[in-house]
């Protein structure tokens, strides 16, 4: 057994591509070995900026001989069949073997030297390498078929044991010679075998193992900060990036002018991180310090003094730019930036950002006035955002968490609180200012700071704290693990912004398809789910997206700019529609009470229904990711029979949880079994008849009917039903009726109170009567009256259950 070393040395490989390249190298190598019949060996891979390395342990010296047999046609088969088989195998008739009257193509691949396999594998790997971006270079690039690599390939070390595996690819011939550190070790190095590779390179100032380099940077940077009495702000991404930019990392600490601390700390951190790949530090009080840690790629002769001075100078130039932008931005009030939003196209079909701001402002106000977002949505929370469950770890956020107060000493007087403004006024105000920072100099330079800068500028110009906070946080939550806003004003704006985006894109048929979601609507939908859940917002998705769509259609509400009260009344007009579930069913004959423009009304309804389906699908996705059973969600979504959908996410989840708890109890499992039996019989015996028809005689059938022309029909129907019931019920049958009579009102009351566990408990009382009914009563009675009545009773059982959830969707 022998080890194999492969080093592909090139000009500097982008840091962000190195990890994936190691994986790909390993994958391709295993694939090439497999073709030769060699099982996947133990593999180690390394990457530095200048080399991609693979060490395969314990390879056999030779491959096994492989005998492969392909069955062909019978010897007696027609000539066409034989011809086809010969074509497929590329053999002649003589080369085939006959056995028991059947022809076989037998290929024998003799065992090969592993070194030979490797010699063909290396060029194949180089040619097939899936770099995200690759290039041609040099004299060979006169031909368009010239080799491609991430950057010019410079050398190949290929050693099987201590022997060179001879091969040539991309104009490079393999050998045993490589180079050490670009500046510390100029000459060539001859490698003996895989065993001495890592240590030989270390002696030439190259630490081959990326994890070791990252560890050196992590420890060195921390020590450097400690040495200066500071604490390093750790950053995994930056660690990996610096490890990918160095072969001999040396962390060095430097200082910048304290005057720059007047700039918001997030700006300093971002400048240092993104532009310069520096770490930042905090002082004992947790405040950002005027220090940075850069990672050099050499042990400088002067201990790094010049390197630090040079880096400090660059950072100073960048920070003075940032300071300039910040100070310039502060001179213009956010509302004075708004006209510029008129010139930014949000989407060609959806107008400008200014149009969006207008819509979001109205929607945010509506969310407050309609009671979706109230002053006390999460009592007792002092902070603006709730920490995400399980958050904290993971990738560093592009925008730093809002852990710093908005007010900054340099900003002037502290912002007032919004005691003199109503919640609705603050929500609308914040929404109007929320996008203004997009046209500030700072956000132009650092788009990642959108929202955050707006928050600073809003606070600086004396907006109420709640407004400034909403401007800052209204993009949240940006992804899973991000903080979810809980401050009422912020929640209103964050929700309105996302609801508007989703609804408008759906309205113009730009919904996500397959893997394509160019406007990040799925993320926005998950954001809404988080906002609703965290804050227990009672929101009808249909109604709210309907309102949003109408606003986008430009019709708006009948009284667009009316006083709040009028607006509320206008909305109230639409509420019964949502209640009717007509929207949900997407019925073509929708009622159109008092709408100014029926065509737009219908468009808005369609948009609302598709937004609802999309939101439900996203909720299902989120729940599934959290380990929930999808069938419970699907069951709980369907209420009141086939068409109506629950579109209040909080209530939906309450149903799901009650269902989940109930079905796992013995009562639940039995009721489920009884329900399924009833549903199956109904499906078989009375397909398509799931109408509510009064059965017990206690109700007045005419009470259901509003249409006078229809009344005689219903009366007649009721009469025949009554006749059908005029027989002696069997005991179990009567018991089930009695149980239903008792359970239905209890379940109904519980549902009204949104006590779904209570509703389930009421239904659970049906369990024994149902079981007895199935034991003692024959549904399919010869007497058609009895049969009809018993089917109706089963339908009643089913419908009672359906008031809570569609149990037929529950698996098992």
């Amino acid at each position: 057994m022998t080890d194999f070393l492969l080093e592909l040395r090139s000009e500097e490989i982008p840091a962000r591509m190195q990890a994936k390249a190691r994986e790909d190298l390993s994958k391709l190598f295993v694939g090439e070995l497999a073709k030769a019949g060699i099982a996947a060996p133990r593999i180690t891979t390394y990457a530095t900026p200048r080399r991609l390395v693979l060490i395969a342990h314990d390879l056999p010296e030779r491959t096994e001989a492989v005998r492969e047999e392909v069955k062909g046609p019978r010897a007696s088969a027609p000539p066409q069949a034989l011809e086809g088989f010969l074509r497929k195998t590329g053999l002649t008739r003589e080369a085939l073997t006959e056995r028991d009257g059947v022809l076989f193509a037998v290929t024998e691949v003799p065992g090969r030297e592993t070194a030979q396999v490797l010699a063909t594998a290396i060029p194949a790997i180089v040619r097939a390498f899936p770099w995200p971006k690759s290039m041609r270079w040099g004299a060979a690039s006169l031909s368009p078929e010239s080799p491609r690599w991430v950057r010019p390939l410079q050398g190949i070390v290929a050693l099987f044991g201590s022997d060179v595996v001879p091969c040539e690819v991309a104009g490079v011939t393999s050998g045993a010679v490589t180079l050490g550190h670009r500046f510390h070790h100029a000459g060539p190095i001859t490698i003996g075998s895989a065993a001495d590779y890592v240590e030989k390179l270390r002696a030439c100032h190259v630490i081959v193992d990326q994890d070791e380099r990252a560890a050196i940077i992590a420890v060195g940077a921390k020590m450097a900060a400690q040495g200066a009495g500071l604490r390093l702000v750790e950053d995994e991404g930056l660690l990996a990036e610096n490890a990918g930019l160095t072969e001999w990392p040396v962390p060095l600490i430097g200082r910048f002018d304290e005057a720059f601390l007047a700039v918001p700390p997030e700006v300093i951190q971002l400048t240092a991180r993104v532009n310069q790949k520096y770490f930042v530090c905090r002082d004992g009080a947790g405040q950002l310090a005027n220090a940075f840690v850069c990672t050099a790629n050499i042990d400088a002769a002067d201990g790094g003094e010049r390197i630090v001075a040079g880096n400090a100078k660059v950072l100073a130039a960048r920070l003075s730019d940032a300071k300039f932008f910040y100070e310039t931005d502060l001179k213009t009030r956010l509302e004075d930036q708004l006209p510029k939003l008129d010139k930014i196209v949000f989407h060609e079909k959806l107008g400008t950002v200014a149009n969006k701001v207008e819509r979001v402002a109205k929607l945010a106000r509506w969310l407050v006035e309609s009671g979706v977002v109230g002053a006390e949505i999460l009592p007792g929370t002092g902070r603006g955002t709730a920490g995400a469950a399980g958050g904290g770890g993971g990738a560093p956020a592009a925008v730093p968490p809002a852990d710093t107060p908005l007010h900054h000493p340099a900003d002037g007087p502290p912002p007032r609180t919004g005691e003199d403004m109503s919640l609705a006024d603050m929500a609308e105000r914040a929404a109007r200012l929320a996008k203004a920072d997009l046209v500030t100099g700072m956000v132009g330079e650092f788009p990642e700071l959108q929202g955050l800068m707006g928050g600073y500028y809003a606070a600086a110009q004396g907006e109420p704290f709640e407004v400034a906070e909403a401007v800052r946080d209204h993009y949240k939550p940006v992804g899973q693990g991000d903080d979810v806003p809980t401050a009422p004003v912020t929640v209103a704006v964050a929700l309105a912004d996302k609801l508007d985006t989703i609804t408008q894109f759906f309205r113009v048929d730009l919904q996500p398809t397959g893997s394509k979601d160019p406007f990040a609507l799925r993320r926005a939908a998950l954001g809404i789910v988080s906002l609703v859940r965290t804050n227990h917002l009672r929101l009808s998705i249909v109604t709210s997206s309907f309102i949003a769509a109408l606003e986008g259609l430009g019709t708006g509400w009948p009284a667009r700019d009316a006083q709040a009260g009028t607006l509320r009344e206008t909305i109230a007009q639409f509420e019964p529609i949502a209640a009717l579930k007509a929207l949900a069913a997407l019925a073509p004959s929708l009622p159109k009470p008092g709408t100014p423009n029926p065509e737009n009304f219908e468009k808005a309804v369609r948009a609302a229904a598709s937004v609802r389906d999309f939101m439900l699908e996203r909720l299902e996705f989120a729940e599934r990711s959290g380990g929930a059973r999808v069938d419970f969600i699907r069951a709980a979504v369907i209420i009141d029979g086939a068409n109506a959908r629950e579109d209040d996410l909080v209530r939906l989840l309450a149903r799901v949880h009650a269902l989940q708890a109930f079905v796992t109890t013995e009562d639940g499992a039995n009721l489920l079994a009884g329900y399924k039996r009833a549903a199956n019989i109904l499906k078989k015996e009375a397909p398509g008849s799931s109408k509510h028809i009064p059965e017990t005689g206690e109700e007045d059938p005419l009470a259901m009917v509003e249409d006078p022309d229809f009344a005689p029909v219903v009366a007649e129907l009721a009469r025949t039903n009554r006749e059908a019931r005029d027989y002696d019920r069997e005991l179990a049958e009567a018991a089930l009726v009695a149980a239903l009579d008792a359970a239905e009102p209890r379940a109904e009351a519980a549902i009204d109170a949104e006590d779904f566990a209570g509703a389930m408990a009421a239904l659970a009382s049906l369990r024994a009567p149902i079981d007895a009914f199935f034991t003692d009563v024959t549904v399919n009675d010869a007497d058609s009256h009895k049969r009809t009545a018993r089917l109706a009773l089963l339908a009643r059982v089913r419908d009672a259950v359906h008031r809570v959830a569609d149990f037929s969707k529950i698996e098992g």
Partner: protein
Amino acid sequence: MAAPLSFQKMILTLHDYWSDRGCVILQPYDMRMGAGTFHPATTLRALGPEPWNAAFVQPSRRPTDGRYGENPNRLQHYYQYQVILKPSPPDLQELYLGSLAAIGIDFTQHDIRFVEDDWESPTLGAWGLGWEVWCDGMEVTQFTYFQQMGGFDCKPVAGELTYGLERLAMYIQDKDSVYDLAFNDAGVTYGDVFLENERQMSKWNFEVADTDGLFDLFRKAAAECENALANDVPIAAYEQAIEASHVFNLLNARGVISVAERQAYIGRVRDLAKASCAKFIETQTPVWQAKYPGWVA
């Protein structure tokens, strides 16, 4: 340690260095342009199969970067040092590092890094892969392997080095303001040479330039480009594309081009530049194929 090189001595050193390595040393192109890459010695010569090695200084004009002489790092007119080597030699990185050593950068005390930075010029229909070269964290050079120019594959690929001369000089001379740079060794500073220029040109770029006249110039340049193309003189056509590009930059600085129009103007310039490249290839292909049988664009 010897006294650091003056600004002009640095240029002369680079000239000597690249001259010794077989480059044609050109003088700046006599037209206003935004970057050395626009120079026909780069753009047009990157096309076709023939070897081409050249180095030159190109004054670069970026009207929107003007700061009236008040920002120590930003200028509306500055110098780029361009080296173009076609095909890209196998030791291009070493050649480049040699040039840094020549102008006084000591690799035992300074941290040189090649950091991914792919280059793309929509106006030239060009892109390439490469790095920004960092010296102690400062970007001092753009290092690019051209892959496409004018929408055509580069066959062969050219290596392009673009040194930011002022930055390098500020670094070598350890100055915080570009205006404090020693231009020569006789006491003349960069500010003595260019400060008033920056003040006046910033004012002209942002406030004074007659926009009607500029719109007119843009139209005329575009028309003249078409005229030259129709008459098979692509080098002349390309000059007009350069002109149109710079006039667009001026209009942009005057703030008279809306966001919506911007794309249309850039598209127009790109079409002119690409058409010039296409025509250049078309007219030169017979010459190239005579020397490189089988070569096709």
